């Protein structure tokens, strides 16, 4: 987007500097932080949250929210896991079909989220809260609350594959960031998502269908949940109906720390990438630093609130 980019680049730069400072701090204060092993460890841990947060960015940009991604992750995973463990398929067929099943499930749930809230003009907060329960219930129902495991070994191997010490799954997430960045900043579609987040009525009166864009944003979020589900299974080699609890909150946190406005219309997916990194670095670094997981959780909470305060302050400066 012309010009908007400059301001947004500056905004992202600020978050990038914060991330850099964190990295410098943990590198100096702990012994193992900057080791190759630990870095790939962090990147692996970030991956799932990052993929979910990319989809969340689309939804938050149009002024919505998606509380159902954690449950949807479980639902997608158990559907895909069921397909993956059908013994008659070759590994190639099984993985292909499982991926389609995960994507299909995610897309269907996301579409429903978007369509229900757009068609009836309901707040997405409520609709996705409903979906949170529906998807979780469905995952439990489908599996009878059992965990699915023993996936093809090559599938599992893919989940821990490295390229120059970087996990392949993280590279996939990075590629998704690149695609999302392109879509949001270079296409008409992206422009109108920003437009809707800023002033829905102006966009409608300029002859655009709000319904289409709203449904699309939630559907994209759903598709990304499907991808995240496959990554989750490849890494942990299980698909359980109780995975992903609270993941939606981490994804939202990454988006907000990344500088995207909760009221919509402002933010970038690069910011989301940085936000997810900050959460991941904090989680890892604080534990290496010797703090308990409870302390880590508290500090992450403080960072979220700080991010919103900084954003508010920045908004006031640009407004004046």
């Amino acid at each position, binding site marked *: *987007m*012309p*010009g*908007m980019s*400059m301001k947004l680049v500056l905004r992202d730069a600020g978050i990038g500097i914060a991330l850099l400072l964190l990295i410098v701090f943990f590198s100096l204060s702990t012994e193992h932080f900057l080791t190759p092993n630990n870095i790939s460890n962090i990147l692996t841990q970030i991956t799932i949250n990052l993929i979910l947060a990319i989809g969340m960015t689309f939804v938050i940009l149009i002024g919505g929210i998606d509380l159902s991604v954690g449950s949807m992750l479980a639902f997608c995973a158990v559907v895909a896991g069921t397909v993956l463990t059908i013994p008659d398929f070759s590994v190639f067929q099984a993985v292909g079909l499982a991926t389609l099943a995960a994507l299909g499930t995610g897309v269907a749930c996301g579409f429903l989220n978007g369509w229900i809230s757009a068609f009836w003009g309901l707040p997405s907060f409520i609709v996705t809260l409903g979906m949170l329960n529906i998807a979780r219930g469905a995952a439990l129902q489908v599996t009878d609350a059992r965990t699915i495991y023993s996936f093809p070994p090559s599938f599992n191997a893919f989940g821990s594959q490295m390229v120059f010490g970087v996990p392949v799954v993280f590279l996939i997430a990075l590629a998704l960031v690149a695609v999302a960045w392109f879509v949001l900043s*270079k*296409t*008409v*579609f992206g*422009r*109108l998502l*920003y*437009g809707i987040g*800023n*002033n829905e*009525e*102006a*966009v*409608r*009166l*300029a*002859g*655009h*269908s709000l319904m289409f864009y709203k449904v699309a944003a939630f559907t994209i979020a759903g598709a990304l949940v499907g991808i995240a589900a496959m990554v989750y299974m490849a890494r942990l080699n299980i698909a359980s109906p109780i995975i992903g609890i609270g993941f939606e909150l981490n994804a939202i946190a990454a988006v907000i720390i990344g500088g995207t406005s909760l009221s919509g*219309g*402002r933010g970038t997916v690069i910011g989301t990438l940085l936000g997810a990194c900050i959460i991941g670095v904090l989680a890892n670094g604080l534990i290496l630093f010797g703090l308990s997981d409870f302390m880590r959780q508290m500090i992450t909470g403080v960072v979220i609130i700080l991010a919103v305060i900084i954003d508010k302050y920045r908004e006031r400066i640009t*407004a*004046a």
Partner: protein
Amino acid sequence: MTHPDSGALHQAAAAEATRVPILDLHDVRKRFGGTVALNGVTLSVAPGEVHGLIGENGAGKSTLIKILCGIVKPDSGAIRLSGEAYEPQAPRDAKARGLQVVHQEFNLLPFLSVAENIFIEHLPRNLFGVVKRKDMNVGARSALDAIGLKDIDVSWPVERLGIAHRQLVEVARALMTDSRVLILDEPTATLTSRETDRLFTIINDLRSRGVSVIFVSHHLDEIFRICDRVTVLRNGETVFSRPIGETSHDQLVRAMVGQQLQKEMASEAISSAGKETVLSLVNFRHAQSPHVDGISLDLHKGEILGIAGLVGSGRTELLRAIFAAEQPLSGTRLRNGKPAPFRSPREAIQAGIGFMTEDRKEEGLIMTMPIAANVTLASLSSVSRVGLIDSKLENAMTEQLGADLKLKYGGPSRHAATLSGGNQQKVVLAKWLARNPQVLLLDEPTRGVDVGAKAEIYALIRRLAEKGLALLVVSSELPELMTLCDRIMVMSQHRIVGELARADFSEEKILTYAYQGERRHAGH
């Protein structure tokens, strides 16, 4: 600091020394970062005086008012209220010292009742802190009656009221507290002449009780009707201050804008209306229309057709229904003689119709997005290929239209919010012109726009009509319609009650029609 009118100022100041001013500002200055907002404002208001404060947008009126009500602190200068130094730290201090402001932006709470809004600062309570609803409603009733708002129920939520009535409720609220100085910031911008009359009666009443009123307005005729004295701000300075009897309309305009722009306003319009009908409505009923017959009209190529009427007469609703922003109830819309049953704004736009809405902030512009993005919002397909935006093409289109419309802007990538009201309105216009429409619907095209930009917008509208564009203009400013239009239709109670050709234009005739319908309705 010297300037051409400083001699006159000093004289005036000497004359005023004999009467003790209730409010006195001397050389007040204020900077915001690198921008000078006030560069020496001197103002003196006598007790019981109605003091007009005028100036183009950006002249410093808003900053001055913010200083007076304690929202912003001045950098230097002295302010005295009733002879004592006045340095409000917060709006609370201003109220305590008897200075009340009715702001331009609405400060009402939409979901609370009218009565609750009026009493919000001191709700009547019993011992247990429970609101005494009856007392409150009775008090609110008499407050509304006092300003002639008899037809409004105090238990209605404010969101039910039209924009004009909300403004009057704000006035009623300000009058609840006894104040010595009342500042009205463009109170008439949203009022029709009927409500303006009502407001002026209130102001006259206040004057007779010794209350001083600072009246901010873009309408010079109102200044001459109600004010005792007028002060002009330009670029943050007081450039002119005289008793109303010693000045003239032209003199004030010159003081505000300089000379060159006046010509454009005064130039005589030549009708370019053709015979070809581009848009017709037959028994067309918008969603709120109570009349079975609806509205029928023909709009011709190159014609500027005005729609006059009081607030609430259904003018905005009509435009929105034509554009399919809301679905009409019944009736036919014909475009070039063919039925055009649009289901959405999209289809109206595809049929060559554009719609500049009444409220540019809420419906017209995306304030926090670049000017270029706003200009191309309705024509993204012409600046993109396979869904990819070509930003070079987009900027070129913005610069082209910007030059055509004499847009004053920092660049295509600056946010729309950085523009003044007049230039924002030009961006909205550019958005539609980018599509080369054949019909343009304009709702209050110059609301909140300063005199200079107004003249430019008028000239633009005329130029568009000459090129064959058909324009349907809704406006509450009769002089605006009478300057612009080839023909005026008067709406009242959701129907057309009269039509005037240019030769027959007069404010009296239009108002007679407008009130006729009103009375007929009241008789039911």
